[in-house]
């Protein structure tokens, strides 16, 4: 490009800037963009962490041993028990967090593998902390109470325990002064439990306490219990509908 040509080009640009009254975009628009991208990245990381916390809570509190009573094969039980929604959230959030971070002003300096590894590590640590502190369980309970049909997409665990004919029963204790314990199951039916169950840790057999019972039905509204288990978390509304 010769000098004459160069000058023409410069004059054209300067002429257009003046004619169209062009001015540089304000600084705040760039700051807004940068902080928005960073916020999206952090949000994805936090949502991923919460997802992992709830996933961990579900996996660790799930009754993995009752698949035979439930009439399921082991792998079918695993498949139906895993909170797929949260697993999907984890799978989406980690790469999204990476993508958003790499779009930040300095994000491109870091290697893809390093950002993804760090995202996974942070999600695991934060998620575990959320599980330990009970935040993950509280969040899961809150979502179950406020979002309609939430339990359909995260795995219906309450209904599993409303099959006395299969030896699985769950409900709230309404009388436990002496043996037998009387409960109201989560569909509103009253049951008298007989037998001397192995009382699991954390089960205090107090009125108002929610418990799971393994045993077998011995009559109309009578259930012979072989084991009591503590009920973790909320009860899904209309669990078997």
């Amino acid at each position, binding site marked *: 490009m010769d000098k004459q040509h160069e000058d023409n080009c410069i004059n054209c640009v300067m002429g257009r800037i003046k004619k169209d009254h062009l001015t540089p975009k304000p600084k705040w628009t760039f700051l807004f963009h940068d902080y928005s991208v960073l916020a999206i990245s952090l949000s994805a990381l936090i949502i991923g962490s919460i997802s992992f916390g709830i996933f961990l809570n579900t996996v660790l509190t799930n009754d993995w041993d009752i698949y035979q009573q439930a009439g399921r094969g082991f792998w079918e039980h695993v498949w139906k028990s895993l909170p797929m929604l949260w697993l999907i959230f984890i799978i989406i959030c980690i790469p999204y967090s990476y993508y958003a971070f790499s779009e930040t002003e300095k994000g*491109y300096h870091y290697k893809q593998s390093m950002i993804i590894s760090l995202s996974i590590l942070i999600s695991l640590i934060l998620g575990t902390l959320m599980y330990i502190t009970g935040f993950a369980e509280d969040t899961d309970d809150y979502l179950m109470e406020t979002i309609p049909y939430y339990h359909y997409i995260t795995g219906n665990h309450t209904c599993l325990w409303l099959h006395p004919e299969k030896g699985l029963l769950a409900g709230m204790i309404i009388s436990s002064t002496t043996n037998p314990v009387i409960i109201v199951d989560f569909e509103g039916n009253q049951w008298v439990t007989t037998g001397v169950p192995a009382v699991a840790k954390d089960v205090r057999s107090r009125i108002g306490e929610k418990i799971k019972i393994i045993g077998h039905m011995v009559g109309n509204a009578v259930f012979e219990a072989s084991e009591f288990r503590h009920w973790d978390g909320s009860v899904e509304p209309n669990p078997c509908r």
Partner: protein
Amino acid sequence: MYNTCEEKTDEELVALSIEDQEYFGCLMKRYTAPLSRYIIRIVPSFRDSIDDVLQEVFIKIYLNLNGFDPDLKFSSWVYRITHNHAVSLLRKEKSRPKTVSTDNDEYDFFERYIADSQPNEKEIRYAKEEVSYVLNQMDIKYREVLILRYLEEMDYDEIGDILKKPVGTVGTLISRAKTLFKEEYTKRYGQAT
């Protein structure tokens, strides 16, 4: 105006241009030639309309002056905007016939990185076209790093800032691009002289 800004750095001129648009002319004066050369290397089919392309690029640069990150070299930032614009043109103009761009720099690339011995004049003339042809046949992700490294003579940090890639990735891309270039060149023209 253009004489008064010769001693000023790019960064000082950016600050002045935001306040007074006349100073932007100084920045354009510095970058018109290198950027037009770079655009033609990335999208040779735009050689005839380089003025229009260059004007669009400078208008983009002007509008985004407040987004310039002082941690970067201004040249890297300017090349990044130009690169993005050129690549978007390349995507739009895939169907345009490829033209061969040749200048002495292409031969320098050949001489420094491909050839093993000093060729004669006739070989030099052919080599320019051959190098350009092979470069233009390469995938843009390899072509762009070869152009930035060996024709624009940028270091790895600058290339990383322009392409928004980590320095390690730039090194890997350059190494792979060189291998691919040699393979393609040898396949088409035989062993480099």
